């Protein structure tokens, strides 16, 4: 297809907590073409938000980006100066936050919160042009123009979420990361917001990373799915591959735990607990919970490798032939 708009290479983040060092992101690498939509799934605490924040260079102490590259449209964000990074936010890469409910300043009008974002990137733009762009942005997320003059408390949850999206697309970024944009909304609103995101993605032709837990939503509107486990990407494949024939045992367990008519009434989960990032199991981090684990899995750490069908998997089951070959 087209050239990759986003390349993440060996991204590493560590949180230095009182209890020890937590490797929240361990050598994460993937690429995304422009116009592609990737879903990012994984248990709570697996590091999804951390990845998004690291890409925005918004990891705060006690966390630190230890290494890696985030190349958007040819520029490596990690090496930018702080000032350049400020400009890159929203214009190259935008983040739509996890808790849209509280993400808007309660004492400022929506309009002011949109224009200050534009103003920060373009000090020469005229006020009327700025207002016009905000209005367009609001309309493109199906909000009325009046919202511009309103305060956050006058909006519903879904509307606030849309405002956040409208802010995210103000400067037509190349990559949009949406962190669980629908998790606090009811089902109908969820669908509407997802449709909005899809349409905007088409209009702008940008790449989208959607973080979430709802596999159904992922299946419906994403192109690719990436599975994260204990700070590592363990499988990246197309939606079709993922849902028909997942490779990684964790991915398989995720898909099998989805309710369907066949296993009605049985709530399936993945046995065992998600590991603490402070004490990640040796070898493959998933081995204590894996039904197919061998002794080797406790010692050898698998690497993310491309499979013949194009997907990436990090599991010794699929590494073996290559190692022996």
């Amino acid at each position: 297809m087209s050239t990759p708009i986003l390349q993440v290479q060996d991204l590493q983040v560590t949180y230095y907590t009182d209890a020890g060092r937590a490797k929240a992101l361990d050598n994460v690498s993937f690429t995304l073409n422009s116009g592609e939509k990737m879903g990012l799934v994984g248990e709570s605490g697996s590091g999804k938000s951390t990845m998004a924040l690291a890409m925005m260079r918004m990891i705060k102490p006690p966390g630190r980006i230890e290494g890696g590259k985030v190349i958007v449209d040819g520029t490596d964000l990690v090496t930018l100066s702080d000032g350049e990074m400020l400009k890159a936010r929203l214009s190259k890469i935008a983040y739509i936050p996890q808790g849209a409910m509280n993400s808007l300043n309660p004492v400022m009008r929506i309009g002011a919160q949109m224009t200050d974002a534009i103003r920060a990137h373009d000090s020469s733009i005229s006020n009327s042009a700025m207002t016009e762009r905000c209005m367009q942005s609001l309309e493109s997320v199906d909000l009325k123009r009046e919202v511009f003059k309103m305060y956050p408390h006058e909006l519903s949850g879904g509307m606030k979420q849309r405002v956040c999206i409208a802010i995210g697309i103000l400067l037509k970024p190349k990559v949009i990361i949406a962190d669980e944009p629908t998790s606090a909304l009811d089902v109908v609103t969820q669908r509407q917001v997802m449709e909005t995101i899809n349409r905007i993605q088409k209009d702008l032709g940008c790449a989208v990373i959607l973080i979430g837990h709802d596999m159904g939503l992922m299946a419906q509107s994403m192109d690719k799915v990436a599975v994260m486990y204990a700070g590592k990407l363990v499988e990246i494949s197309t939606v079709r591959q993922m849902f028909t024939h997942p490779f990684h045992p964790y991915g398989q367990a995720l898909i099998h735990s989805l309710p369907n008519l066949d296993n009605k009434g049985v709530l399936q989960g993945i046995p065992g607990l998600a590991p603490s990032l402070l004490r990640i199991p040796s070898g493959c981090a998933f081995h204590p919970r894996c039904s197919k684990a061998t002794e080797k899995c406790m010692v050898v750490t698998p690497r993310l490798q491309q499979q013949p069908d194009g997907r990436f998997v990090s599991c010794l089951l699929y590494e073996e032939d290559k190692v022996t070959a």
Partner: protein
Amino acid sequence: MYLVRRVLFLLFVIWVTSTIIFFIPRISPRNPIRERLAELSRSTGYAPKDLEKIVQAYNQKFGLDKPLAQQYAEYMGSVLRGDLGPSLNQYPKTVWELILEALPWTIGLLISTTLISFVLGNMLGALTAWPKSPRWVKGLMAPMMMLQGVPPYLLGLLLIFFVAFRAKLLPMGGAYEIGTRVSFTAQFIFDVLRHQLLPGLALVLSSVAFWALGMRGMGITIQGEDYVNFAEHKGLGAMVIFRDYYVRNALLPQVTGLALAFGQVIVSGVLVEQLFGLPGLGGLLGKAITANDYFVIFGIAFFIIISVTVLMLLVDIVYPLLDPRIRIDSK
């Protein structure tokens, strides 16, 4: 509707307070007139034989011989008409005259110090809680915590000792150099300012700490808020986030605090005026208390309670302008 209820409530507060401050000195066994006359005779060495008669006469003149209930009704009536009565101790001056003489001093001192410390304290507090500010700013917090509790009177005492008594940099007390005439010349104004410096500093020091600590607590809470994070995601500069997202939100409860703190500010001011021998309400109150001068005590207390309630009302009116979530009618 809310405002009307609020005004009625505050009127009620004023009425309750004035009733309390009317009755307390009058239940007292002390009689200001007898005390005053006794003092006069002590200082002049002349003891009138019919002292009791004179006391009676004065009691009658000021209406103090009537039953309490009647005195109360009559006096409240005159207060409503704006007449606070005569001073018992400095007759024939009226209470209003005395208050108006003292008021400019107190207002000047309190308003300027409150404004300075509110602005300075909130700025300091916001900065100490702001993660990006330098270390030495954060280090200011420890002395602030201690300072917050120390009454300005004591700070004033130390200032007098070190700055005025030891270093002889500033005058130890008084409103202006003894012997100068009250006038509006530059020289006189400069002299007054010089005399106000220490009392002002004493008041500012501890209330700066008070506001700084309050603001710091708010600031720490606000920092964790999603909207501050999202503002950073938008690529806004630190200054804009600090001003529009952080300070504006953290400041809201502080504005409400302003009205509540005002009572304490007045008390501190009164004490500091007493310490420095300034001719403001504090000095007046001190004299009135020593002499049990009912009407002056009532007048000052009444005046203070009115200013406190008016300020509360003002905050009620201004607050909705600052916080769009609150509308006056919504309550």
